[in-house]
C-alpha cells in the first residue's frame, strides 16, 4: 500500500476557450497537509472540483486508496469520504446555520421526519469544535462573511471525512480565526488521520501548516509534492510566477497636504454607527482597520447613500454635500467604491469583460445621442486591464468563466478607468495571488501619488501597514483609535491591536 491516499495522474481539463489543466499531477500523502498553490487561474479550483466530482476530467486518472475512481457527482465524492470547502460560499442563505451544517445528513426521528432538536444539538457540537459562538438557529444570511466561511468549514468537518479539501478557506478570516483554524487542522491530522489539501494565496500560512507543496502554473505542474522544508518564500514565489517576487515598496514620500478633502462629522446611522468622525486628506491613503464585522463596509455604504445617515454631516472640500446614491457619488463628487463582494456587488458575472470593465466610464464616454460602441470603451479600459494583467482569452469572455482572482482584477480595473478623486477600496486583495497583489499595491500607491485620495479597508494587517499613511481603527461601529503609520510592522500592529482590545 502506497503512502498516497489520493493520486491524480496526467489530468487535463478543457473549458470552452481555455485549457484549465494540462497534464497535471497531484499526490496527497496520508496524514499530511498539502498546499496547492498557483497564480489566479492556474487551475487550483478546477483540480479541486475534479477531485470532488463537480467536473469530469477530459484526460487522466484519479486514484483513491490506490483504486481508480471517477466521481460522477459531488455526492459520489462525499460518499467516498472526501469533503470540501469550495472557494465560493455554498451555504443556503435562507436556512439556519444548523440545518446547513447537517444538510447532507439531516437527522430523522422514527417517523422519518427531520428532527430539528438533533439538528441543533449536532451542529452545535461542530460549531463548538470550531470555537464558533453562533446559535445554530441563526439564519445564514444574517451572518458576516467571516462567520459564513467558518460555518462552511464546520460543515465540511461534520462529515468526518478522511480527506479534507480547503480552497482558500482563510480568505475572509481574521488572524485570530485563522490561528484557531490552523490549530484545529493540525489536531485533525494528528489525532484523526485526516489528510488535507490547502489552497491559499497567503504564503505565511502555507509555511505555517503545510508539509508538502504542489504548484500549478497555467494548468501544468511547476512542482509536484515538494517538501516544504526544501523551499523558502522566494523559491515558492518563483515557482508560482516564474520570476522573483518584487518587494512591495511602501509609499515613501508622503506628499499629501493637510488640506481636508472629505470630512465625516459625527455621523450616526440607521445601522448603528455612533458619532463617527473621519477626515481624508488630499492624496492620502487612509486605512480603515478593524476585525471583520466592525462596520467599515457599512459605513462606506451609508456615505454612498445606500443606507440612511441619521445625523451628522459629510463635507467635501469643506462644503456640506448630500450623496443620494452611488451615481451621485460618481458623477457629482467623483467618489468611487470597490466592493469587497465582487460576485454580488462588484461584477456582472454574466456579462463579458469589456462591459464589466467599462461600466463606470460609459457616462463619460458617451457621444451625441448617447452613442457608445465597443471600441470607444475598449480604448479607454484597455490600459488598465493590461496593467493588471487580467488573464482572459478575450474581452468577450464572460466574467463568470474567469478565475476568482482575475475577476477581482476586473472589479478593480473598472474603478481605475473611472478616474475618481476619492476611492473607497474594500478588501482589494481577497483571493488575489501574490504577483497581482503586488501589482495592486503598486497601483494603489501610484494612484495616491497621482492625487487620488483613498480610504482603504483591509483586514490584512501587512497590507494595511505597507500601504496606509494613517490608520483608523474601528470596532463595533465606532472609531476607537487613530495612528500615523510609520510602516514598522511590529510597532504598528501592536498599537492597532491595542486599540481594538482595550
Amino acid at each position: 500500500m502506497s503512502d498516497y491516499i489520493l493520486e491524480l495522474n496526467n489530468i487535463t481539463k478543457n473549458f470552452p476557450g481555455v485549457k484549465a489543466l494540462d497534464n497535471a499531477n497531484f499526490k496527497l500523502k496520508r496524514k499530511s497537509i498539502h498546499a496547492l498553490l498557483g497564480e489566479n487561474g492556474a487551475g487550483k479550483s478546477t483540480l479541486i472540483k475534479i477531485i470532488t466530482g463537480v467536473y469530469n476530467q477530459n484526460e487522466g486518472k484519479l486514484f483513491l486508496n490506490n483504486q481508480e475512481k471517477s466521481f460522477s457527482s459531488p455526492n459520489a465524492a462525499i460518499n467516498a469520504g472526501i469533503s470540501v470547502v469550495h472557494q465560493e460560499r455554498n451555504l443556503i442563505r435562507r436556512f439556519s446555520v444548523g440545518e446547513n451544517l447537517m444538510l447532507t445528513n439531516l437527522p430523522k426521528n422514527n417517523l422519518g421526519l427531520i428532527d430539528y432538536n438533533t439538528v441543533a444539538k449536532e451542529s452545535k457540537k461542530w460549531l463548538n469544535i470550531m470555537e464558533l459562538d453562533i446559535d445554530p438557529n441563526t439564519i445564514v444570511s444574517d451572518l458576516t462573511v467571516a462567520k459564513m466561511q467558518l460555518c462552511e468549514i464546520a460543515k465540511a468537518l461534520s462529515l468526518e471525512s478522511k480527506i479534507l479539501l480547503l480552497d482558500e478557506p482563510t480568505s475572509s478570516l481574521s488572524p485570530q480565526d485563522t490561528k484557531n483554524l490552523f490549530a484545529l487542522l493540525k489536531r485533525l491530522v494528528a489525532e484523526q488521520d485526516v489528510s488535507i489539501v490547502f489552497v491559499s494565496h497567503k504564503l505565511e500560512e502555507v509555511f505555517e501548516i503545510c508539509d508538502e507543496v504542489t504548484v500549478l502554473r497555467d494548468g501544468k505542474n511547476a512542482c509536484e509534492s515538494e517538501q516544504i522544508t526544501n523551499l523558502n518564500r522566494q523559491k515558492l514565489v518563483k515557482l508560482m510566477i516564474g520570476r522573483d517576487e518584487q518587494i512591495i515598496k511602501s509609499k515613501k514620500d508622503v506628499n499629501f497636504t493637510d488640506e481636508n478633502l472629505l470630512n465625516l462629522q459625527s455621523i450616526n446611522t440607521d445601522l448603528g454607527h455612533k458619532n463617527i468622525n473621519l477626515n481624508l486628506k488630499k492624496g492620502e491613503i487612509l486605512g480603515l482597520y478593524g476585525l471583520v464585522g466592525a462596520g467599515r463596509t457599512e459605513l462606506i455604504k451609508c456615505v454612498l447613500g445606500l443606507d440612511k445617515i441619521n445625523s451628522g454631516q459629510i463635507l467635501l472640500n469643506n462644503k456640506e454635500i448630500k450623496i443620494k446614491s452611488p451615481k451621485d457619488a460618481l458623477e457629482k463628487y467623483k467618489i468611487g467604491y470597490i466592493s469587497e463582494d465582487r460576485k454580488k456587488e462588484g461584477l456582472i458575472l454574466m456579462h463579458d469583460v469589456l462591459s464589466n470593465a467599462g461600466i463606470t466610464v460609459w457616462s463619460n464616454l458617451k457621444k451625441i445621442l448617447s452613442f457608445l460602441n465597443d471600441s470607444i470603451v475598449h480604448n479607454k479600459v484597455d490600459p488598465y486591464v493590461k496593467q493588471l494583467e487580467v488573464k482572459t482569452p478575450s474581452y468577450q469572455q464572460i466574467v463568470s468563466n474567469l478565475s476568482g482572482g482575475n475577476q477581482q482584477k476586473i472589479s478593480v480595473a473598472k474603478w481605475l478607468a473611472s478616474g475618481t478623486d476619492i476611492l473607497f477600496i474594500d478588501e482589494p486583495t481577497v483571493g488575489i495571488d501574490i504577483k497581482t497583489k503586488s501589482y495592486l499595491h503598486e497601483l494603489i500607491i501610484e494612484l495616491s501619488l497621482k492625487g487620488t485620495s483613498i480610504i482603504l479597508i483591509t483586514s490584512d494587517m501587512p497590507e494595511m501597514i505597507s500601504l496606509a499613511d494613517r490608520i483608523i481603527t474601528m470596532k463595533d461601529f465606532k472609531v476607537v483609535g487613530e495612528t500615523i503609520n510609520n510602516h514598522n510592522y511590529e510597532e504598528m500592529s501592536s498599537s492597532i491591536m491595542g486599540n481594538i482590545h482595550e
Partner: protein
Amino acid sequence: MNNKIPNFVKTNQFGLLILVIVFICIFSFSTDGFTSRFNIYALSRVVALDIMIGLAMMVVILTGGLNLSLGALGVSAAMFGGWCMESMGIPISITIILVLAFGSFLGWINGFVTVRTGVHSFIVTLATMSIYFGFMTLLTEAEAFRKLPEAFTDFGSLKLFNKYISPLLIISVLTCFVLYYIFKYTDIGRKLIAAGANPDAAELSGISVDRMFIYCHMLSGFLAALAGIMLTARIGAAIPSMAGHLGFDWLLPAFLAPVLGGTLLSGGKVTVFGTMLGAILVTLINNGLYLIDVGEFWVRFFLGIILLGAVLLDRAREYFTVKNSIVS
C-alpha cells in the same frame, strides 16, 4: 478561440433562422396556399404585431421582471387613441404621439410602483392589468371606436411590395433596428442591460437602477401602445375586446417570442432579433398548421410539439457549438 465556426452560427438567432427557413420550405411544399399573396400578406400583419408585443415584454424581462399588464395596457392605449380621433377629432399624427405618451405613462406607473413599493413586478402588473382594463371598460362602457379617419384605417390594409407585405411589418422591423441600436450602441442601453443583469453591482457602479427599471417599464408601455395602434389600424377600429378579456390574448405571444429568441428570463440579456425570429417562427407554425389539415382541435397540440422540438433542437445546436469550441 476557435475560428472554424463563425460567431453568428453559435447564436440562438442562427438556430432560429434555420428553423424558420426549414418550416417555410416544409409548408411551401406540403400545402397549397402558403405562398399565396393573400397568405403572405396576412402573415406579415400577424408577425408585425407579435414582434411588437414580444419586444414590449422583452424589455421588462430584461429587468428580471414581467409585465402581465401588457395586453390591458395596449388596449387601453388603443382605446385612448380611438377616443382622441373619433370623439376629439385630433389629427392622426398628434393622436399617435399622445397614445405613445399615454402608453409610456401607464408603463411608468408600473415601473414606479414596482420600484417604490418593492412589490414584485409580477404582482404589480397583475394588479394594474386589472386596474387599467377595469378603467378602460368603465370609461368606454365597452363601446368601440369605429369612425376612425380613413387615412388611418387604410394604412392598416395597405399592401406594399407587390401587395405581399403590410406596412405594419415595416414598422415592427424598424422598431427592432432602433432597439438593437439602443441596446448595442448607446450608453443608456448598456445601463439598462447592466441594471437588469445585476442590480446591486450596477448600482454600486454608479447606475441609478431604479431609474433604469422605470425606463424599461416605460419602454414596454410605449411598445405595447404602439402594438395597440397597429392592431387598431389593422382591424379598423379600437375595440375593448381586441386583446381578449384583460388583454390575455397578448400574453402568450408576448412570452413566446422573446423566450424562443433567447432572452434570459432572469434578466440582463436581450436579443432583439431573436425576439423577431421567435415571433416569425411561432406565426409560421400556427399558419402552417391551419394550412396542413391537422384538424383544428389538434392545432394546439402540434404547436406545442413543434415548439418543444424547436427548443430542443436549439439546445442541441448549442451543445454542439460549445463542444466544438473546446480547445484540445
